[in-house]
């Protein structure tokens, strides 16, 4: 055992984080992880288990010669800082604590630092208005208040999450420009291995195009409203396809922010519930969001709501994503990426190739959307994408036309759309 890892006995437990442990030595300080950070989804034990690994690394990197640490139990550390006075040592432990907190929040984005949370709650002026705004962890004065902040923050979080669950009706009644008609078109999706156009993705308005007309980036409420409206429109489409005996899969996008918010999730689930059970077999939900924004546990939590309410769940993330481990553990049917419009065709080919290769290594199915031309379609096929969509495959259509067969060469013939039967709407 190295000297640094040698256990240090602790005589008694101090009430707050970074408190100096009385008894054998006033140079031994205690660091308690649960006083630093909480997580939106993780149970405390889960977070602590993960945070322990991070804490070990940060503390090891931070200690100087002659200083030692030892893990006392889950999330509790004793630091022996012999060269510092008790006050200086306490301050130093607070700094280390803040580094750990920052690192945990970086690795697990759903984590919230307690001081931040307390400050947010205080500024919202809710029931806990009397909460003292949190001081920085580096400040000595802030240290004794941490436990109290934690308690108040947890209570406030409970109140906030229970009191703000919007019902679908309420969500739909919030009128907003640009969000009344979320689906403009449908994007046919080509199943490469089965050589069929078997699914249609709802294409949402591109808000960046609408900026000149006074429509700004939608806020969370607007996004949730768009998601709910999309589901309701998809329901109508599926009903008409089934009644026209042209069943095909319909992919409805839903934003990650909607699923992560207790306020809007219930309304979204209510919208899915409006789809008859027999039609849900044709519904695929496509989560739109940055994969790095969701923790593994958070993703599992979100998927638990979706899996039994639709045929399968897709996840569209950034094309530069290279780590697909979260998807292998959760039941995500396929992971997608959109071709980028701001890079050259050659760069897009490289990005598509890298994305597909990384996903295939982890055994994840992949789909590409927004392929702008036939060249990018071929690049996607060559890279190993299982599904492809975009103007390079078939231009967006007003209405899904049902499943039909299409081999690769069909997309490159002059009569390229010959396989498309006339739309039932026509």
């Amino acid at each position, binding site marked *: 055992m190295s000297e640094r890892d040698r256990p240090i006995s602790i005589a008694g437990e101090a009430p707050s984080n970074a408190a100096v442990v009385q008894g054998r030595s006033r140079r031994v300080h205690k660091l308690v992880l649960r006083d630093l950070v909480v997580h939106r989804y993780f149970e405390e034990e889960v977070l602590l288990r993960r945070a322990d690994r991070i804490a070990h690394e940060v503390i090891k990197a931070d200690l100087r010669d002659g200083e030692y640490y030892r893990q006392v139990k889950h999330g509790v550390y004793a630091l022996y800082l012999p060269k510092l006075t008790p006050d200086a040592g306490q301050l130093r432990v607070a700094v280390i604590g803040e580094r750990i907190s920052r690192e945990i929040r970086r690795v697990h984005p759903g984590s919230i630092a307690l001081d931040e949370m307390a400050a947010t709650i205080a500024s919202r002026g809710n029931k806990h208005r009397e909460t003292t705004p949190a001081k920085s962890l580096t400040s000595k004065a802030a240290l004794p208040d941490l436990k109290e902040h934690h308690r108040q923050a947890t209570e406030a979080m409970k109140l906030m999450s229970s009191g703000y669950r919007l019902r679908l009706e309420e969500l739909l009644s919030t009128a907003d420009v640009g969000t009344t008609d979320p689906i403009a078109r449908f994007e046919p999706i080509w199943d*490469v291995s089965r050589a069929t156009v078997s699914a249609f993705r709802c294409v949402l308005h591109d808000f960046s195009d609408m900026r000149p007309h006074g429509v700004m980036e939608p806020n969370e409420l607007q996004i949730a409203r768009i998601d709910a409206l999309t589901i309701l429109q998809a329901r109508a489409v599926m009903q008409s396809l089934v009644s026209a005996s042209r069943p095909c899969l319909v992919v409805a996008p839903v934003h990650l922010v909607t699923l992560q918010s207790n306020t809007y999730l219930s309304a979204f689930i209510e919208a899915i519930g409006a789809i008859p059970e027999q039609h849900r077999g044709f519904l695929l939900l496509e989560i739109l969001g940055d994969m790095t924004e969701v923790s593994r546990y958070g993703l599992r939590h979100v998927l638990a709501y979706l899996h039994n309410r639709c045929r399968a769940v897709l996840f569209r993330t950034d094309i530069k994503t290279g780590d697909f481990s979260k998807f292998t553990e959760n039941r995500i049917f396929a992971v997608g990426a959109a071709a980028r419009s701001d890079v*050259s*065709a*050659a760069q897009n*080919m490289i990005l598509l190739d890298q994305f597909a290769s990384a996903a295939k290594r982890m055994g994840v199915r992949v789909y590409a959307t927004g392929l702008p031309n*036939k*060249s990018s379609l*071929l*690049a996607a*096929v*060559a*890279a*190993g994408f299982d599904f492809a969509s975009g103007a390079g495959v078939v231009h967006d259509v007003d209405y899904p036309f049902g499943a039909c067969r299409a*081999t*690769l*060469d069909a997309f*490159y*013939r*002059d009569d390229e759309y010959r396989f498309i039967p006339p739309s039932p709407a026509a």
Partner: protein
Amino acid sequence: MNKTRVTVIDDDASVLRSLERLLHVAGYETGGFPSMESFLASGEGSITNCLILDLLLPGMCGLEAIGLLKREFPTMKVVAISGCGRAKNREVLEAARRLGADAYFSKPLDVAELLATVRLFLQRQEEAPRSRGALK
């Protein structure tokens, strides 16, 4: 004696250079282009007897180009090349065949086989009554 012209289109500069050199050594007049657009702009389509075409190109891709080439230069032989040993390579090459490619090869190329195919095509072209109009 007029040399027959074989043109290569590949966005990979090293493949392009090697194939050009190889065909030159084999006794053909050669030309090389990194993209379909530059080939069409050069006007060399009308003097090319055989075209070795990489399918995976930025801009107009090989599959898109085959139909156009067959329409504009009906006597030109098109040899499609593609690959890197990917799983979907066979499907891509099969699509090229269905679209009208005269032959197709997977990368890494079997150079001897490629040269034999080019030679065979050009020999047949010599023997067949030439429709010079299309080439001029």
